[in-house]
Every structure is written in C-alpha cells, then in structure tokens.
C-alpha cells in the first residue's frame, strides 16, 4: 500500500492504494467519481475511457502508480461550469439510449477533436475502434462528432 497524489479534474486527491490498483477502481470506489464506467476490464470495450494529459486512455488497464504527475480528466469535468460543445452535440443528436457507455465516448471525442479538429467518417471509425455500444448508437456518435467539430 502506498500513498499517491493524483490530479483529477484539476483537483488534488491523496489516496492510499496498492500500486497495481487500476485507475478505474480508484476513480469509482476511492474517489466516488462514478461517471467512469466498468465494461470489460481487459481494454476491449473502451467505455472506461478517461483523459490523461488530454489523451484518451482505458482506465481499466492503467495502474494508479502510472498516473502520478499526470492530469486525469473524467466525465465529471467537462460540463462542470458550462456544458462542453461535445456534450451539447451529444444531446442535440440524441445519441444516448441507456447512456452507460457515453461518458467514455464523449471523452474520446474531446481527445480526437483536440488532435484532429475535422475528422472524416473513416477517421472517426478508427478513433472509435474497440469502443463498444450495445444500444447501437454508432450512427449518431458519428453525427455528433461532426457536429461538435462544427462547434456543438
């Protein structure tokens, strides 16, 4: 057990955790930031996606020890003050059905648009490889990414 200082959503948290404890469970069970969801635990569905220094990562694969001195962003951050254009686009395109996997997809879109402000359909598909949704919202995710690229 070790003590870690984590930067999550511009806040500083101190947690006692095993070095191997995965970021997903640190967020959900130690920090009660439950917007980040569990889907598979093996990096196959990507619904646990969070941002580390702006890059989309699968929090179910990343040990807490590897997150020290990095900035972690979870779904609780973007809408905190005012709704983020990607969240806005998600609502305008009525993407969500059950909604359980959408936090990871919204964060993945923020990371994608940061690198590539106007992705093509093929680039969106590539960015969402292994991002699963059982409700089948894929067509609307594509539309929402394009809409967000245009400003929301």
């Amino acid at each position, binding site marked *: *057990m070790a003590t870690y200082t984590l930067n999550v959503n511009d806040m500083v948290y101190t947690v006692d955790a095993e070095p191997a404890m995965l970021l997903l469970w640190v967020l959900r*069970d130690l920090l009660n930031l439950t917007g980040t969801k569990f889907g598979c635990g093996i990096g196959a569905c990507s619904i646990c996606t969070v941002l580390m220094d702006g890059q989309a990562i699968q929090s179910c694969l990343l040990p807490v020890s590897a997150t020290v001195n990095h900035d972690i962003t979870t779904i609780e951050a973007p809408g905190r003050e005012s709704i983020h254009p990607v969240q806005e686009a998600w609502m305008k395109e*009525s993407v969500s059905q059950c909604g359980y996997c959408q936090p990871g997809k*919204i964060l993945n879109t923020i990371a994608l648009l940061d690198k590539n402000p106007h992705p093509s359909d093929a680039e*969106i598909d590539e960015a969402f490889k292994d991002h699963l949704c*059982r409700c089948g919202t894929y067509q609307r995710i594509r539309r929402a990414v394009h809409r967000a690229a245009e400003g929301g």
Partner: protein
Amino acid sequence: MATLTRRDFLKVSFTAAGALLITSYLDACAPSEATEVVPARTSTPIPEPVFKANLFIRIDKDGIVTLTIHRSEMGQGVRTSLAMILAEELEADWSKVRVEQSPANTAIGSQTTGGSGSIADHYSILREAGATARDMLILAAAQMWGVAPEECRAEQSTVIHAATNKKLSYGELVTAAKDVRLTKSPQLKDPKDFRFIGTSLPRIDDLEIVTGKAIYGSDVRLPGMLYAVMARCPVFGGKLINFEADKTRSTRSVRDVVQVSNGVAVIAENTWAAIQGRNALQVKWDEGTNTKYSSQSIRQELVDAMDKAIANESTQSLTTIDAIYETPYLAHAAMAPVSCVAHVRADGCDIWVGTQNPQDVQQFVQRVVKVPTEVHVTLLGGGFGRMLEVDYAMEAAEISQAIGVPVQVAWTRDDDIQHDFYRQPTYHWMRAGWDTDGNLGLWRHYIAGPGLNGIAYRAGREVLEEGLVSPYNISGRAVQALLVNIPLPTGPWRAVMSGPNALANECFFDEVATALKKDPYQFRMELLDENNELRSVLQLAAEKSNWDTPVTAGRGRGIACHNYHGTSVAMVAEISVENSAVRIHKVVCAINCGRVIHPDMVAQQMEGSIVFGLTSLLKSEITIENGRVQQSSFLDYPILQMNEMPEVEVYIVPNDREPTGTGEMGVPPIVPAVVNAIFALTGKRIRHTPIRPADLQ
C-alpha cells in the same frame, strides 16, 4: 360491482401538503383489495372503487408536475415518453414536468418492463389522467373568477380566461382544485392539437447522462458499503465442495470471505481488491451431471426431437422444398454487467438495482432475507431481457445478510457472459409445396428448442410459438413447437423467439419465391391480406429503397418483415461480400406502430435493434462444452463496432390507431433481410447464425 369505465379508475386526492394527486388503476378487471395510497381527502364526485393504483401524478403548489414512473428506463426512453403523454393532456409547461422512479410496489400494477409494452399499456390512462387534472384546474379557476369553465382554456400550466385576460398558474390553483366537482368526463384532445405527442423532445435524463451524473446500479454508494465479487461454479447446477481462502483473506483490503448458496463471496473495501481476492481463492466444485452437455449434444437432442416429429410428414403430391434453420445460445451482454446493492438489517432490507422486474426482485429477495424489502430502481445500462431475472439481487441480499453491512455485488464481464440466462438455441424444419400451377398449398414450420427456465421467468412451449406462424396467406399452413428440456439457464432476449422464427419464416419464404421465380417483395404483397399492416411497411421500405430499380453493381438487396406485439417492421438491407465477409452498407427500415409519441426514439430503437440483430448474425454465439460456457469476454463474444455500422434510414407509416411498442421490433426482420441480400448477391443460402467465414468462401 357495477360496470366501471376506465376513467372511473382514476382517483383524485390531495396530499397533506396540499398537492393535487391523481392515482389510477390500469387493468380493466375489477381489482380485489383496497390499498390506501394517499391521505384521501377527496371531495370529487368521481367514484372511488376499491383499487390499486399504478399511476401517480402529483401537482405541487409550486406548479411542479411529477409523474411517478413505475416502468424501468433502459434506454428506450420510457421516462420521457410517458411524461410527454401526461403533459399533453394536462397542457403542462414541459419545463415544470419531473419524473420520479417508483420503488417496487405490489399495489401499483405490473412494473415489469418487457414485451415493448410501456407505451401501449399507458397511453390511454395517462391521457385520461392528464385531462382530468386539467379540467379540474380549469374548473377551479372558473369558479374563482365566477365565469363558465367553457370560457377558459389551459395552456403551459396556466388557466386563462381570454375575455378578461385573467390568468392563474396550476400551482396557484392546486388548493382551490380541492373543492371542485367535475360534472362531466374530461374531453381528450383532438390529436391535431397535440403539442408534445409526435415531437422529439430531449430525453429527460440526457443532461445527467452526458455529464456522468446518471446513476446506474453499480454507481450506488452508501456509507460503510463494501464491495463483493462471487466465485460461482462454471458448470451450471454445480455445487461447492470446499474452498481455501487463506491467500484471499490476506489480500490487502479484503474484509471477508463467505459461503452463500450460489458459491463463495469475496468482500472487500473496493471492487479491485475483491477481484484480487477472488483470483487468490481456491475453490473445489462438484460439477454435477450437467458436464455431459455440449453445444453438439444439445443440438443432437433438438435434431432427434425434430426427426421424430417429421417422420410421417408427406409432400401431399406437391412439388416441395425443405430447409433446416438453426440458431445458437446467445448472451445479452449489456454494457453494464448486472450489479446490485443490498443492505439487510434485522428489521428490513433495501435493494438498489437496475432491474426490469422490481416486483419479482422484492418477492424473491424477501424469500431469502425474510424481512420486509424495499427495492429502489436505478437507471439500467441496457436491459435486453437480462434484467428481468432476479438472481443478482438475491445474491447481493444473501451476502449483505451474512456480513451485516451494505454491500455492492459487482459482476465482471466474464461473470456476465458466463452466468447469463441465455437466448435458447433453436432448430427449425421448414417445408413448402406448390402445385403444377405454382400455387402454394403446403407450409410447415416446426421449431425445436428449450423453453425459459429462469428463476422469475419460466415458459414452456408457448415461448417457442412466438412469431412461429408466418403472416402469409398460404393454404395448408401448420406449425409445431417441440419443447426440449435442457437444464442450462435461459431467459427472454430482445424479441425473444420472434428472432429465430422470423429468420426461418422470412428466409424460407425467400427460398420459395426464388423457386417460383417471384420477386420477393411482390410475392410477399401477393400473399398478405388486404388489411395486414405488414403491407404498409413493406410498401414504404420498398419505395424508400428503390426496390424496383437495379441495385448498385457488386451489391445485393434483401427484404424481410415481421409483426411483433402489434407493431409491423420491414427492412431492406443492401450488402456486399468482400474476402468472405459481409459488409452491410445500408438498411432502410419502415415501421408501423400506430400513433407515434416520440419519432426520434422510434428511430433510435430501430437503429439499436438493427445493431443488436446484426451482432447475432455477424459476430457472436455462446457455445457449451462440458456443461459450461466457453466464452468470457468481448474478445470471444464480440459485438458490432462502429466501422461495421450501416447507414440506417427509418421511416414511419402515419397511423393514428392506439400506439404499440418499438423496443424489440426491429430485431426480427434485420437478420433475414441481410441473409436474403446475401443470397441475392451470391446465390449462397445461409441457414444458421452467426455467419461463418466458410459460408461465403
């Protein structure tokens, strides 16, 4: 009891705080026991039959209208669309409408969310409830102003007297409404005046969802709550012999290890530690007699039952073709694995759970814990039928009772894939025959398969018969369902047996059309009765897909349709085949579900059903070996990905009859539409799911 109209089952009353409350009982039959749901200080002349309410509408003095939703939200939008129906007749200001999720309550009618029935079951009663409250508020205002109620109208939660330009908000009128007596039944709105019904309002939970604030079963956090994972026998029906937990107990943050009826629970301060503890556990199982089952042996049982049933079938001197269609076990694989929080105390139990079936959760948990149980329903991270079962709540309750603190039982993905209640495997024998003039005079569809053998959900032959009868007007039709009992757990899976039966019916119909050199669309239209709603969707899908013009070179087009619980859906799929793999380019979908409450949610359900059906056709199956499921993750039970998503167009047939459902209705037609398209392109007839690469080589 005198004959009561439905409206008589509305009951108007006031809470101690002075809010107007409307409750109702839905079922047409006279209920038997009295249930006092609110302090009844009613003074309305509306009869008060002894009733159980299944609908609670509250209007508070601040004007907030609250509808208690007793059905579960799993993405189908029920919390939004039910509130829209109420707001329509109530003439409510949408910004003042709220929904509250009802806990399990045996006094409020069925809370089971299944069969795509929530809109169909509540459309009329919600309209009547809304209209009753509206008319009472109008009458209250009219009496205060000393004018005739006919001179007043309601708009945006306000009653207006146009002649004097007087206005009072609903909140201001609630107290006065207590003393009004409605002398006539409220008039329902003319649909041409609808403001909400037929529009696509934002989903009521959307902001919470996109900001991560929406609470699903696994997001519930209680003071002092611990987290548990279970070790269960991998062979269905196996029993625990013993376990060795020293290493588990010394795993950091593990708090306890307890034996419960379904295996061994590892309880820890967080989910990760519980999983580590389980990894360290040594468990010895008595795997029992079910180890003899494999996919192969189960299939053989179905084949044997079918062979016996068809032994004496004749061709009746007609030209006949026969075919066998087959489907495997399927898991639900909702993105949220099942999860449940239980807090059992000496005098009571609270359950927080994403469930499609809160009342059964309450009943079954109470049997385990033997104390009064309250079930709080969270949002569901997908349901698809899995959350109709009660196993995971019973397990959580048992663990919490054993350790005496609140506990969340987390299911990992392998738990979810390996301990589901699966869609049952099916084996279909088809025969069609025609005379020398090409007139069909024989149609057989026999299905063999297990029934449903879950804890809360059990069904025999009747479940196999769902969707078994082909809709076409063919003389000499006969069907048979052969129940083969296999003791592996099965349960309702989106569209239940209509999926496999529509595959067999609609693909075999295509085979017959091919043999008779008929156009698959025209042949369907020829053999459907004039008044069959399938005609309307076939026509619209054919038109929107340009069925009568040649398809792009290198592509194939296929059509299929199905009616499920009163809703007709037809689909035209356009596909190509590259490197032995099918690519679905486009799906044109037409649906006839009567009056549409929320057109965009209809489209969402069709898009979702198409993805769900395509996953079963292109991607995944559950196989059994030695009595256990061989798959355990999204790697060996893959689901459709974004780059495989076809372009989907959804068209709605305008129809003002009472609404029917949409949640499952797109699953049955998509699979045969694609299979028929593959045949049109390649001449290869696929008669099983999922498609294997060898099928297209």
